[in-house]
């Protein structure tokens, strides 16, 4: 287990980052931009056993077994709750993986956070979720395609290294509000910080340059 050692400095910086936006046309979203940074850089414990592959398998098993819905959060959702994370709404065309232009800004804001030195060495899982409208298998497939589309845009448009991103579709298997399975609030994208890409580097040497 590794701990993200990001403290006051990081949070203060995230606030500073949001400040210049306050004078621009995007003032109304600066709060959420700093929330993206704060969510993804929360001091938390990593869970190395919770990989993209494990998550996919858990969702596939739940669909294959047609496990009944419960009022509690699913096992998958409970395990994911322990990670540093953000939840964002990305608008897709109905029933497809096409990202609507109104969400391009949100993708950019995610890239701003991922490119910042606070997060430069970290890896992320992009998770797509649906509500329970439609069949379980279709929802699983669609959410994977949507997560793939987000990763593709982050990589090819906004220059995030593909080594840092994995896409997972959980379909309806990790509902946000299990008591309201058809509520659109369950349709969401989550991004989890899952660990570091490489060693954090050695301290800057002391002495003459």
């Amino acid at each position: 287990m590794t701990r993200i050692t990001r403290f006051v400095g990081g949070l203060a910086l995230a606030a500073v980052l949001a400040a210049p936006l306050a004078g621009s046309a995007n003032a109304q979203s600066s709060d959420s931009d700093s929330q993206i940074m704060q969510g993804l850089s929360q001091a938390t414990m990593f869970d190395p056993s919770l990989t993209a592959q494990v998550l996919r398998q858990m969702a596939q098993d739940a669909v294959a077994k047609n496990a009944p819905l419960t009022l509690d959060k699913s096992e998958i959702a409970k395990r994911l709750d322990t990670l540093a994370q953000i939840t964002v709404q990305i608008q897709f065309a109905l029933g497809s993986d096409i990202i609507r232009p109104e969400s391009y800004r949100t993708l950019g804001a995610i890239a701003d956070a991922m490119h910042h030195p606070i997060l430069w060495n970290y890896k992320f899982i992009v998770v797509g979720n649906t509500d329970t409208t439609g069949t379980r298998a279709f929802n699983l497939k669609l959410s994977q395609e949507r997560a793939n589309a987000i990763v593709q845009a982050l990589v090819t448009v906004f220059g995030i290294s593909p080594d840092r991103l994995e896409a997972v579709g959980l379909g309806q298997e990790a509902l946000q509000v299990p008591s309201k399975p058809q509520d659109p609030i369950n349709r969401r994208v989550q991004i989890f910080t899952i660990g570091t890409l490489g060693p954090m580097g050695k301290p800057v040497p002391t002495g003459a340059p």
Partner: protein
Amino acid sequence: MKRFWVGLAALLLAGMAGSASAQTMSYAEAGALIAKTCGPSIEKFCGKDNLGTGAIRDCLMAHQDQVPQQCFDEYAAARASITKRIAAQGDAYKTCNASIREACAGVQPGDANILTCLQTASKIVRPACKQVLIDAGWWQ
């Protein structure tokens, strides 16, 4: 004559320094700009194409006569800014190496510690380093 051109260049640089256009925009601003000027055309003509595949650009070009010129202009501006910012972010550590060694001895990399150090030591940070951090969107 040569003096004239030097003078003009200086004037242009001075003018740019005071405007937003010389700076890179954030990725969020770039995304918003594309959505604002091209969004309606994308929804109208390119509803089956996704961002990041190259298909949207091809589709907009294929409907060039029906897409506002402003979309092409601002799309190009957003892409150019994104490219510049990615390059600056990638070069920042190398470009700032001398300043980091001068100002940040003993600082542990990670969690933006080095950036915070450079900002604290802004008076001795070299101009090239400062410029790359501005282009990276990391300099306040």
